[in-house]
């Protein structure tokens, strides 16, 4: 009898509801077990989803951690505006960290190359910020479907005192029993979106009406073509090469990073349904637009070893 009655009310959670619940569980586990967590906020679509999930996980409380943006000073202007608007709207405690050593040395993606630039402004910047504030756990929006070395990472990814990842010796992580124990100075990177795909992210943004940076939507924008990529001329710091002239094209971004390193795609998708429709037909992966992934085989793994999230 009891069983029959129960069967009537049983609802099955949808795939996205399960992913949502899994991410919320992971974030709550971090807050329950770690001393000083922080959420890495990169302003992109994955960060927007992660933030949305954090608001849900701790409701009616605010997320009990600050959000940290490691600003390379080369982000799209619209990203910075969106960051300010979002953190104000949600009432979050925002920490912006700039690697001032790097700024003083004038490190930029043009004269130093994307590899050195990323290492100094992003990886070193992140390590500085984590050390300065003594954060012992950092939530990041990376997904396993993004890239091959990400596909190998644990949800709770342990880092040494020097922020190094040891991919050959990761802690076993059975069931959802996450081991958050660590010694002083060591820390854990936590990836609550590990099991989401790019499609899941967009579908969730659509269903949950999550605001994202307007750069994801197609619009006429000034771009130059470089190394097979369309680079947007976001401000006058982009040195134009001889013969290069910005032209207006209808483009959008599948992934957002530093504007000189992020390629746009030509697209007419100016609404969420159109983006989803475009994705369903896509023949290229989102990382295609990331110049930093092209620094040779295993480049993401190398950056991660050095402490990139």
């Amino acid at each position, binding site marked *: 009898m009891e069983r029959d009655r129960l069967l009537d009310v*049983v609802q099955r959670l949808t795939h996205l509801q399960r992913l949502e619940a899994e991410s919320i569980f992971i974030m709550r586990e971090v807050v329950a077990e770690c001393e000083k967590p922080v959420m890495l906020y990169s302003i992109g679509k994955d960060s927007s989803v992660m933030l949305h999930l954090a608001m849900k996980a701790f409701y009616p409380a605010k997320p009990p951690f600050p959000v940290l943006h490691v600003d390379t000073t080369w982000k799209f202007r619209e990203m910075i505006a969106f960051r300010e608007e979002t953190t104000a709207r949600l009432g979050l405690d925002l920490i912006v960290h700039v690697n001032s050593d790097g700024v003083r040395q004038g490190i930029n993606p043009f004269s130093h190359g994307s590899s050195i630039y990323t290492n100094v402004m992003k990886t070193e910047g992140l390590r500085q910020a984590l050390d300065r504030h003594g954060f012992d756990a950092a939530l990041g929006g990376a997904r396993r479907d993004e890239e091959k070395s990400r596909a190998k990472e644990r949800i709770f990814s342990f880092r040494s005192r020097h922020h190094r990842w040891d991919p050959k010796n990761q802690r076993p992580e059975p069931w959802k029993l996450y081991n958050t124990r660590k010694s002083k100075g060591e820390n854990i990177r936590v990836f609550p979106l590990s099991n989401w795909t790019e499609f899941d992210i967009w579908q969730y943004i659509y269903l949950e009406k999550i605001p994202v940076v307007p750069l994801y939507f197609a619009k006429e924008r000034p771009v130059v073509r470089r190394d097979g990529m369309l680079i947007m001329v976001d401000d006058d710091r982009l040195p134009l090469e001889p013969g290069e002239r910005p032209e207006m094209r209808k483009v959008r971004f599948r992934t957002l990073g530093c504007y000189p390193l992020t390629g746009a795609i030509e697209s007419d998708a100016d609404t969420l349904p159109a983006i989803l429709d475009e994705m369903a037909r896509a023949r290229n992966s989102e990382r295609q637009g990331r110049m930093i992934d092209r620094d040779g085989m295993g480049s993401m793994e190398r950056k991660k070893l050095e402490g990139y999230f």
Partner: protein
Amino acid sequence: MSGDAPGLDAYLRAQEKKDLLRLITCGSVDDGKSTLIGRLLYEGKMLLDDQLDSLKAESARVGTQAGDLDFALLVDGLSAEREQGITIDIAYRFFATDKRKFIVADTPGHEQYTRNMATAASTADLAIILADAHRSSELLTQTRRHSYICSMLGIRHIVLAVNKMDLVQYDHAVFEAYVAKYMAFARELGLTQVECIPISALRGDNVVAPSSQMSWYRGPALLPYLETVDFGRESSTRPLRMPVQWVNRPNADFRGFAGTIASGTVKTSDRIKVLPSGQEATISRIVTQDGDLETAVDAQAVTLVLDREIDVSRGDVICAAGSPVSIADQFAVRVLWMAPEELLPGRTYLMKAGTVTTQATVTALKHKISINTLEHNAAKTLQLNEIGLCNISLGKPIAFEPYAESRDLGSFILIDRITNQTIGMGLIDFALRRASNIHWQNLEISRSARAAQKNQKAAVIWFTGLSGSGKSTIASALEKRLYSLGRHTYVLDGDNVRHGLNRDLGFTDADRIENIRRVAEVARLMVDAGLLVIVSFISPFRNEREAARNLMGEGEFLEVFVDAPLDVCEARDPKGLYKKARRQQLMNFTGIGSPYEAPENPDAHLDTARLSVEAAVDKLLSLLEAKGLTSA
């Protein structure tokens, strides 16, 4: 714009209705696991152009398929894996067909990485076990090991994919002979739902479509089978269990219990019971940011509000009042050992089960399981990747269910307290009833009352150091000084205790652990009695000293490192033991045949090569004074 909103909505709804199958590929090295996943992605047109381009380029540069696409490169994402051509850790790949979404975890075949395979298996609904038709005269050890782990972890659906059929000319007899051998083993393991499919991952036979090379095979190809197998779990129909993960208290007006429902459903006005405390209450609200719910189901992450104030904290389990879970502190468990250092019965580890973390000690290792024969063999320890049946005793009772009934409430990991590594994973088979028969006597005179009567605070001063470092001498001098100050003291000395209480123990690691465990328990009773206890034991292992510290209350344990270099101790050699050890007449002697782990942050560090006995005692007295232990 190109999107057609009504059409898209239908498409999205269809996407949402798809369920997600989590599967693993396992089997021995070179059975073709990574190749199979690559083939599935490729044939299923799930590789995007830039991924295919970089696969082509990498195949030409470092591939092992003579210029053809090397699918293993798609999943072996670490540089070390590509260099060595092996899989070290799990890779997760995501794909979807018109019927279903999949997360496939490619697991390592090498025995040394079994713990990674088990990590992936613990969350899988289905396992593809690959076997090599070309090497099919017997079941390989890893095929047995992985099948055993799948069955132990409760994976109900197994696909036996007999791979490399092209190398045996697609011979039906080879397939049948292997299947017969495997099924005999599977029956012993209790695996009932096994689908056997002959394939060639390299050539694509029976991977996404039936192969024309094997017309004798009437069953489904692999992908169509994965798309249709019924793998539902029925945890909604079980009674409510929700481990409390976090107490949400944003202000004085709100107190909610956040957690993910492990099984069952919950509705407002349901009567619930909180375990282990046993207190009851009624659900007044089910809170989410999207609005309060009337009902929540298993796997949902919610925040429950109760109708009255009862004491609930992380680690408690909220249950249907009519059918609560049991509580116990001693269990029969199965453990897969995952550390290079062996499991030591008697040593205290940390156990994380659900949302509880507590101390755990293996009290008896009953046997380990031979993967090849499934025989149970007597064992004193477990080595890396061995599976054993043990009794385990916890620091406090927990709410639980056997693993066979609940993955969430019956699984645990073991953590080393010093290195913080995850060193074992295990499942609860059943509770040992012994715990419930011995109740704590609540005595009316408390420990603080006993100490107060003596006008003092009770504590343990724990001396550790090599033989000959000066522990006994300093302990004795310290006791004299404390006695003259009117303190009530006692010295527990290693040699003396080994003459009586511990005379049955030798000097193996396991016996040393038991030696320390007993003396720590005795010291605790003496602290209970209100004494200042000086323990003077070599106590070589950090882990057991830490366990002793955890037995005492806050501020009741001071670790004193009596430190002298080995050559100084050896020169002193007050009992002539170093000479015997050097002549091999004494085995397992600390510092020579057995390790000494120096304290990392002792409360006092006495360098006895420099300090006189009086100076050492003075130093300790000022420490005790600072801690308020010398005065009333």
